[in-house]
C-alpha cells in the first residue's frame, strides 16, 4: 500500500513536451470512442426532452428540432400522472429512503467492526476476519432463497426494512475499513490512550477525522449499490407502493412499452442522481481501489 502511494502516477507526472503525431492520433481515437460510448446516454437524455411527435422519427434525429421545441412534458406526465399505473414519485421516495438509511447503517456498523478487527485483540478475531473475507466470493444467489424465507418469517415482505437490512450484511465494507485502519500509524492512538482517552474517544476524535476519505468512498459505493439494486427488491416487493426505482422502471417498461418519451424520462431520472454522485466521488473511488489492493 505504501509503495503505491510512493510511486508517482505516470500520467500526471509527465506532460508531453511536444504534441507529436502519436499524441494527436491518440486524441482522435479517444474522441471517437468516447462519442460512441456516450451515444446511448446522450440518446436517453436528449429523447427525454423531445416533444411527443419527434420521438420516433425516421431518419432519427438526436436533438429536438428546432432546439426551441425542447420540453419537459415527458417528465411532467411521468411525475404528475400515474405512469402505467405506477407511482413514480413514490418510488423515488422509497429508493432515496432505502439508499440513505442503508448507507448510514452500513457506515456505522462497518466502521465499528472494521476498527475492532484492526485495532483490538479478542478471541475469534482471526476466524471472524477469515469468514468475512471468504464470504465475499459467495455468489448472492446462494443467499436469495433462505433470505427470502427469513424475511417472510419476520413479516418483512413488501417492507422497506428488508431492502435496507439484508444488503447491509455484506462484508465488503468491513474489509475495506479494516484494511484502511491497519494502514494508519498507531502513534497518535497510543498517545491518546496513555492520556486516558477511551476507545470510543479515540475512534471519534482521532481515527474518524483521518478516515473521512475512505468513509466517503464507502458511502458512495454503498449508496450506488442500494440505488441500483434490482434483484433483491424485485423478489421481496410486490406491492406497487413499496417498489424502488429499478423495480418500477422494469414494471412500467412493460406497461408503457412504446411510450418512449415517458420511459426515457423515467430512466433519465433514475440515472441522474447516480451519475452526479459518481462524478463527485470518482477520484475517491479510484484511490480506494489502489488502497485496498482489491485488484490483486
Amino acid at each position, binding site marked *: 500500500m505504501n509503495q503505491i502511494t510512493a510511486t508517482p502516477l505516470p500520467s500526471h507526472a509527465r506532460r508531453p513536451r511536444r504534441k507529436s503525431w502519436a499524441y494527436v492520433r491518440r486524441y482522435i481515437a479517444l474522441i471517437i470512442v468516447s462519442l460512441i460510448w456516450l451515444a446511448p446516454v446522450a440518446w436517453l437524455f436528449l429523447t427525454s426532452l423531445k416533444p411527443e411527435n419527434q420521438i420516433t422519427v425516421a431518419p*432519427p434525429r438526436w436533438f429536438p428540432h428546432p432546439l426551441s421545441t425542447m420540453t419537459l412534458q415527458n417528465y411532467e406526465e411521468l411525475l404528475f400522472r400515474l405512469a402505467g399505473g405506477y407511482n413514480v414519485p413514490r418510488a423515488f421516495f422509497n429508493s432515496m429512503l432505502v439508499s440513505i438509511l442503508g448507507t448510514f447503517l452500513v457506515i456505522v456498523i462497518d466502521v465499528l467492526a472494521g476498527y475492532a478487527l484492526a485495532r483490538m485483540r479478542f478471541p475469534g478475531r482471526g476466524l471472524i476476519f477469515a469468514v468475512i473475507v471468504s464470504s465475499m466470493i459467495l455468489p448472492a444467489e446462494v*443467499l436469495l432463497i433462505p433470505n427470502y424465507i427469513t424475511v417472510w418469517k419476520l413479516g418483512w415482505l413488501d417492507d422497506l426494512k428488508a431492502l435496507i437490512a439484508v444488503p447491509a450484511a455484506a462484508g465488503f465494507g468491513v474489509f475495506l475499513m479494516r484494511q484502511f485502519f491497519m494502514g494508519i500509524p498507531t502513534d497518535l492512538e497510543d498517545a491518546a490512550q496513555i492520556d486516558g482517552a477511551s476507545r470510543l474517544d479515540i475512534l471519534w476524535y482521532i481515527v474518524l477525522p483521518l478516515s473521512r476519505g475512505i468513509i466517503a468512498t464507502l458511502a458512495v459505493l454503498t449508496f450506488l449499490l442500494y440505488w441500483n439494486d434490482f434483484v433483491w427488491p424485485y423478489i421481496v416487493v410486490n406491492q406497487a407502493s413499496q417498489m424502488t426505482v429499478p423495480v418500477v422502471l422494469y414494471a412500467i417498461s412493460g406497461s408503457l412499452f412504446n411510450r418512449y418519451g415517458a420511459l426515457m424520462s423515467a430512466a433519465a431520472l433514475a440515472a441522474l442522481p447516480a451519475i452526479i454522485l459518481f462524478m463527485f466521488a470518482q477520484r475517491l473511488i479510484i484511490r480506494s481501489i489502489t488502497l485496498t489492493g482489491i485488484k490483486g
Partner: protein
Amino acid sequence: MTTLNNASLPSGRQQVSLRKRWWRQQTWSAYLYMLPFLILFTLFYVYPIFQGLYISLTSWDLITPQKYIGFQNYTNLLSDKQFWTTLRNTAYFTALNVPLAILVPLGLALLVNAPIRGQGIFRTVFSVPMMISVSAIAIIWRWFYDPTSGITNYYLELIGIQGRNWLTDINTAMPAIVIADIWWRSGWNMTLFMAGLQEIPEELYDAAKIDGAGGWNLFRYITLPGLQPTTLFIAVTTVIGSFRVFAIILQLTGGGPFESTRSVVQNLYETAFQFFKMGKASAIAWILFAIVLVFTILQFRLSPNPTE
C-alpha cells in the same frame, strides 16, 4: 515509543493483573463493536448458507410441510432438460462475454492512461454507464434494437448491413445482450486496469526504450506481464459475474426467443418464486456456486505465478 509505553505502566505483579483486566475489558468492548455487524452478518450471510444447503435437500413449496429427500433435487437436475438448456445458454454468454469484458476495458485503459489533456473527462465518459441501473440500461437498449423505431438498424443500413430484429432472432439475441452488457460494465474493469497500469514502474519503460524497444515490444514484454495480477483478478471476477447473469437478460429478452437466452439464475428465480419449488431452486444455486468455485480455482492454478 516503546520506552514511553513501558515507563507509563506499573511494573511487576501489579502490571500483570492490570494487563489482565485491560485485556478482559478490551475483549468485551471489541465484541460490542463487532456486535451490530455480526448480528446482520450472521442472520443474512452465515445462517442462510446452512439453511440454503438444508433446503436444497428437501422438497418444499412454502405451504405444505418441508420434506427431507436427500440428494434427490441434485440427481433430478442432472436429467432436467431445462436446467441443461439454461446452463448451456449461460456458458455461451460467458464464453462471449469474458474475452470482450477483458479486451475492451484493457483497450480503453491503454487509450486513457496517457499524459493527455482531459484524461479525467474521458475516464468519466467510460465509467458513466456502470452507474446506471440495469432497468434504465434495458430500456435504452431495447429501443436501440427495436426493428421499427430503433436507431441500430438505421445506422447499420447506412453502412450496408441488413437490419433485423436483434433481440428476437435466435442467432443474434445473445450477442446483442453481450454488446449491451459490455457497454454497461466496461467502466469497472477499465478502472481496475488503470490502477494496475499505474503500478508498473516507469523505469522499466525507460530502460527498455534505451535498449531500443518499440511500441509493440514495450506492450508485449512490460505492460502485459506487469498487468498479470490485475488481469487474473479481472478474469476471475468477470467469469463469476457472467455465470450469475440474470437481470439484464430478463429485461432485454425475458429469456427468449425459444429459451435461447434463459440463464441459470433466471431458471433459479422462476423455480423459486413462480413455481415455489424451493428445494430444487436451492439445489440450482449450489450447483451454480460449485461451478463458479471450480472456475475460480482453475484460473488461479492455470495462470503463471507472478514473479516478485
